[in-house]
């Protein structure tokens, strides 16, 4: 695969790992705690485990797996809302596959489907729109989920539905935005993260400017990174170089995909269709101001929350779960009392165990070859 294999080149990796080792040794002097680097994006978490990167790095370097997996931060109450909508007899509920197994307080979408709800797995919101076209007598609800990466495609789908007058299509909007959440994390007094590996796909849409406050106000480096192992190693090296030099800047390792200014067309569609919610609940993190979006008034007809009586349930996370602390890096997945016992990928309690981008599922399945072994 051209343009993929180059980024998995063992020789390049060896060179990068050597440089990281040398820098880590320098950083190690004069500190007792590890150098903690948070990869914000779930795609990065997945890649770190898939390629076994943790085992290749010096012990002093610790990846903290941040809140960038949209499935993982979806609160249980929203899953209950999904199930309530999906169980309406007139509804075809269309969702990305990875949301199917997220536990609600009563059941997951997968269980709802087994119980008779018409839940369909789609690969794109346009597939859901096609379902609406082909089933004019039914209400097709698309479960919109994800950060700025998926927001534009959902926005464009709503715009197309409006243009074509497809009135039996609506969006259950659970799109969230990472910036306010990063700020909320950084404002925690005991937040022990030294630097960030920034989300590549989100940045492809929003560009790099929105991260500036991380360097300017909180004096942490952030490097926007791609998803191949070489990308991650190089980005880590860039973060460490800044730390060694006592700098805090926003850098872009993923310039082959991420323009500094983002994608203006995508941003325009997002601005046209969505408005910020006053607050949105994140699983494990609680309510965070201005961290979610909903459809603007002109598109109210396509808003499933306005079209159906959504119960809007608030459900507390199970007591035993420590998802929130895992998400912020305060606790390692295997230190959670239910990790691998009460909470497994087969029977997840917390969403971090559901998605392959969740830190707990990643440790459980790919086995922490270091630390958790």
């Amino acid at each position, binding site marked *: 695969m051209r343009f993929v294999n180059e980024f*998995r*080149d*063992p020789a390049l990796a060896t060179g990068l790992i050597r440089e990281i080792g040398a820098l880590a040794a320098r950083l190690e002097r004069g500190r007792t705690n590890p150098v903690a680097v948070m990869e914000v994006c779930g795609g990065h978490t997945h890649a770190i485990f898939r*390629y*076994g990167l943790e085992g290749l790095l010096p012990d002093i370097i610790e990846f903290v797996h941040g809140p960038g997996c949209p499935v993982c931060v979806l609160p249980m109450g929203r899953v209950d809302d999904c199930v309530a909508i999906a169980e309406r007899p007139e509804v075809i509920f269309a969702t990305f596959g990875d949301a199917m197994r997220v536990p609600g307080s009563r059941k997951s979408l997968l269980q709802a489907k087994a119980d008779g709800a018409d839940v369909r797995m789609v*690969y794109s919101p346009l597939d859901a729109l096609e379902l609406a076209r082909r089933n004019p007598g039914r209400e097709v609800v698309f479960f919109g989920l994800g950060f700025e990466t998926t927001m534009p495609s959902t926005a464009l789908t709503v715009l197309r539905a409006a243009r074509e007058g497809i009135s039996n299509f609506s969006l259950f909007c659970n799109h969230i935005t990472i910036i306010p959440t990063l700020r909320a994390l950084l404002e925690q007094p005991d937040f022990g993260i030294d630097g960030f590996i920034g989300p590549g796909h989100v940045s492809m849409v929003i560009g790099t400017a929105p991260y500036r406050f991380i360097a300017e106000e909180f004096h942490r480096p952030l490097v926007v990174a791609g998803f191949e*192992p070489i990308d991650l190693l190089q980005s880590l090296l860039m973060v460490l170089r800044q730390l060694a030099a006592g700098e805090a800047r926003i850098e872009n390792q993923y310039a082959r995909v991420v323009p500094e200014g983002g994608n203006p067309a995508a941003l325009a569609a997002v601005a046209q269709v969505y408005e910020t919610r006053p607050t949105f609940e994140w699983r494990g993190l609680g309510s965070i101001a201005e961290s979610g979006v909903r459809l603007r008034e002109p598109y109210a007809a396509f808003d499933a929350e306005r079209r159906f009586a959504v119960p809007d349930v608030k459900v507390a996370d199970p007591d035993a779960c420590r998802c929130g602390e895992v998400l912020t890096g305060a606790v390692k997945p295997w230190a959670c009392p239910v990790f691998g016992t009460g909470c497994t*990928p087969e029977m997840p309690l917390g969403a971090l165990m559901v998605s392959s981008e969740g830190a707990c599922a990643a440790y459980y*399945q790919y086995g922490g*070859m270091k630390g958790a072994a």
Partner: protein
Amino acid sequence: MNIPFDRPVRRPRRVTQATVTLAHGGGGTAMRDLIEDVFLETFAGAGHPAPEDQARFDLTALAALGDRLAFTTDSFVVDPLFFPGGDIGTLAVCGTVNDLAVGGARPVALSCAVIIEEGLPVETLRTVVASMARAAAAAGVSIVTGDTKVVARGACDKLFITTTGIGVVRAGLQVGIDRARPGDVVLVNGLLGDHGAAILNARGDLALETTIASDCAPLHELVDVLITAAPGVRMMRDATRGGAAAVLNELAEASAVGVRVREMDLPIRPEVNGFCEILGLDPLYLANEGKLIAVVPAEEAAAALSAWRMHPLGQGAVAVGTVVAERPGRVVMETRFGGERIVDMLVGDQLPRIC
């Protein structure tokens, strides 16, 4: 009483309708027409003796083939029914033949039970049954008994097939999932993941342009070749649902050994890799329908590989891993640039209804 006309001669049993209806499962003449016309003539040939309710086997003939009977069953619900490289019929025969063969058995005979959704075009059924007959001939087995049910629309999806098979295990041969020992070598006869990728692609909802075909094939000859070349063979499995990862994990667990595989050594077609890359799938978990994973003692590995490579289905045979004492129960993959990760069993299904 004298009947003033001769009773009409029974017409040849032919299905005249274009689609299967509930009447074809009703036990009357329509059902007998369907069974005779579509199944019996294809499986047993014209002029076959009147069918009984069961197949009967000569025990002396069976006993000459080995010292134990092997018996297995499998149901097939693949969607779509037809895909590049095969159809549900070839799959239903090869799947059960392979389950017999990997136990060291010589496959002898299969049953064929079908559940048909009303409305299925009779031509579709004929095509599938013809595929079954061809696959059975290629595998050297007979289809000797069967059953036909028709259910209302929506009660099943088009066509489900169950095949049950018997075979005879070669005298003295001992193979088993619990027999791997540290030092053994793990072999596979060729490219991994083609079937799973072909099925997903054939569903058409991804609109990807690739020409990946299913690897669906009977593996009994490869088993023959292997047993001759590597008489110490420990275990054989066909890597179907759950892919190579499932077989390796079962092996590690049952034999209480570790298995180490090297990502670099895994035989995966570039198109399948690309396909997985786009969809976020792992080719190690993709189903195969013509891939044999075998564990042999290290000293027999070279002979096994060169013997396999002489066979059309074994040209791409390679060693993909080794059995080790460390980390019993675990499959560890050495990634492309020296990292390690655990290859676990799949939770739930990566793709539904692939076989």
